[in-house]
Structure formats: structure tokens, C-alpha cells
């Protein structure tokens, strides 16, 4: 077999790989269902955190708030709330919402799951 033919075969192989990757990554990528909340888009994560903060405004239950935040990932609840507060400040959330997030952040910064908050 001539070297030209070998080159043609290699080109065909590379073309096949390229087509396969394009199809698998772009045209028909793996579809995810049943995803965990830690890959939610940032605005959804922030809104979820805001809901937790709003609920906290009513019951002041730090355990429940921390447990609810935990579904967003393995980061500490204070880190999650801090990120949400930064997003809220950047995106001009209203005062009530920012206050709710600040209150939740204060609670989460002092939250101790083994005992009562100081």
C-alpha cells in the first residue's frame, strides 16, 4: 500500500473522529435529567438562597436554613450565602432581599451544627 493511501486512510480516520466528536458533543450531546442542585445556574442558586433567607426571616431556624442550603453543594452555608449576597449586590436586588440575605449570612457565619448558635 502506497504512502498516499496510508495518508488517505489516516485522514479518513481523523475525519471520522471529528464527526463523532461533533455529533456526540454538539449535535446529540448526552442529555442529563435528574440533576443535583449544585449545577443549577447561578441566578437559580441565588433565588433558592433568597427563598431560604425569606423563610428564615419568619422562623429564625438556623438548622433548617443550613440544611436547606446544603442541597446546593458541599460548600459551607455561609459561603453559599455570601456568594448569593454578592450576586444580589451586583444585580441590584431590592433592599428587603439584600437585608434578608445579610441576616441569613450573619446566622450562617455563627451557626454551629453541633450546638446552639452563639
Amino acid at each position: 500500500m502506497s504512502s498516499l493511501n496510508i495518508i488517505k486512510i489516516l485522514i479518513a480516520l481523523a475525519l471520522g473522529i471529528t464527526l463523532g466528536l461533533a455529533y456526540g458533543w454538539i449535535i446529540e450531546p448526552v442529555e442529563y435529567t435528574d440533576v443535583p442542585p449544585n449545577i443549577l445556574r447561578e441566578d437559580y442558586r441565588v433565588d433558592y438562597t433568597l427563598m431560604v433567607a425569606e423563610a428564615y426571616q419568619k422562623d429564625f431556624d438556623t438548622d433548617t436554613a443550613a440544611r436547606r442550603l446544603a442541597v446546593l453543594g458541599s460548600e459551607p452555608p455561609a459561603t453559599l450565602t455570601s456568594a448569593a449576597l454578592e450576586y444580589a449586590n451586583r444585580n441590584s436586588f431590592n433592599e428587603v432581599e439584600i437585608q434578608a440575605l445579610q441576616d441569613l449570612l450573619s446566622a450562617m457565619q455563627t451557626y454551629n451544627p453541633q450546638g446552639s448558635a452563639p
Partner: protein
Amino acid sequence: MISRLARNTNLHILFALLIGLGAGLWYSWRISPVTYVDANPALLRADFKDQYRIVIAAAYAANPDLARARERLNLLGDADPVAELSAQAQRMLAAGDSFEQVRPLANLATDLTQGFASNPIAPTPFPTFNTPAAQATSAASETPAPVIEATETNLPQPTTSFEQTPLTPLIIETVTPRPTFTPTAGPGAPFALVGQETVCDPSEPAGLMRFKLLDSRRNEKAGIEIVVTWDQGEDRFFTGLKPELGHGYADFVMQADTTYNIRVVTGGSFVPNIVAPGCTDPNGVAYTGGLLLTFQQP
């Protein structure tokens, strides 16, 4: 000979193309599939969706912004958000969750059905903290924060835009005078027994006591707790947990020859001495009938 070789070469090229295609697909689907980030709440696993609904209902209980709650529920992509709320409330009760945990879901389902908030927005006092005002700072400068295990079950369709809705409703003042004012009972007004019907239907379960709870506008009300007591026990349940029968519907199976006392927790209505009625079918055979109790707010 030459044409055979050329034919073989073409076959080799085709074969290489197919091998490459297969390898590319294998890599892109199995080895390194597309990694999802920025997912939509509608893609969440069912238990996380449940958690999401709980948090939506809890936030709504604190800030009764019905439009916002509805928008948040729509993110989950449920065909019928009210039915999902009711079904989740049933699942939670069946799993042994407390009524207090279920109540926000039932209340939100009720408000979504009736189209307005049962409890008007009331300013909630912010908690007072002894710690300095919180700053949005890096977690590295904070006290080491605990990692919590998620124990609640719950939650959020692709590429729909999500818009923040105002937390507080717009209040438009009008100066149009009202000629008359008719006082109406508030959402927490007591329920009164307005109807007690005997139901003799052999096709129904014996001793079935059905409840229908209505507000002053005769809209069915979900999330109302009812307590049934008798000499040997007590049962508690909520209206709205069988939405297919009505949001204000609940039922309980009575035993023959047992006297029951009914208490509607909201408003404190009390109905004593309820017994299952006796009925007779067309063949003259006696059986235990049922009751339909209708309660309504004034």
C-alpha cells in the same frame, strides 16, 4: 489487480472513517460527555424538586407574594403545580412528616387555587443579631463553617429565562369612593357547620365521613386541619390532600356504634356526637352509611 487494490483502498478508507466515527462517539458520550453547568430547576431530580417546593412554600409563608411563588413553581416544569403541591403534601404526611411541615405547601396550593393570598403581607421584624453586620466576604476569612448533610427531600426546564419579580406588590392607590362597605370575615374566621347530610350509597365505603370546607365565597379551602376524636383515639388530617375530589375535601372512615367529636382547628369549630348513620339497601339489608359535613366561614 490494480482496480482490486484501489477497491481495497477505498474500503480501507471507509473502514477508517467508521472506526474514527465510532471512537469519536465513544469518547464524547462515554469518556468525556458534555458536562452540564447552569442547569435549570426543571431538570432536577424528583427529591430535589420536592425540596425546592418546600422552600418555595416556606418563602411564600414569610412573604405572601403569590405571583412570585407561582413563577418559582413554574421553574420546576410541572404540568399542574397545584396538583404537585397537594401530592407532595400527601407524600410527606404518609412519610410521617409533621403537619407543621406540610401546612405551607397546603396553604400555597390553596392560595394558588383561589388566586389570592389568604394571609395578607405583614411586615416581619428582622431578627436582631449580636454579631457585627454581615459582609459579603470571602469564606476564607470566616469562622470555619460546617458542612451540613442535606436531609430534606426536595426541587428546579431548560433555557427559559428567569425574571425576578418584585418581592413587594405594587400598591396602586385609588381615590374612587366606595358607596357602601360590607364587612367580611377574614381568612382566619371560624368555620361553622352549615350542612350535615346522610349519604346512603352501598357503593361507597361503609361509614365514610366526608368533609367539605368552604370560605365565605364558597370556594373550597385546602390546608385546613381537622381533628376527629373518639373514646379510643384521635386522628388528624388536612383538607386538600385529595385534590381530585376538591381542594376543600377530606374524609374519614367511621366505625359503627362509635361516637365521634369533630374539631376544625382553624377557627376552633367543634361538632360533638357524630355517629355513622344506619341505612337500608333496596333488598332491606341494613348497612352503615356515610355523612357529608359542610363547614363554611361566615
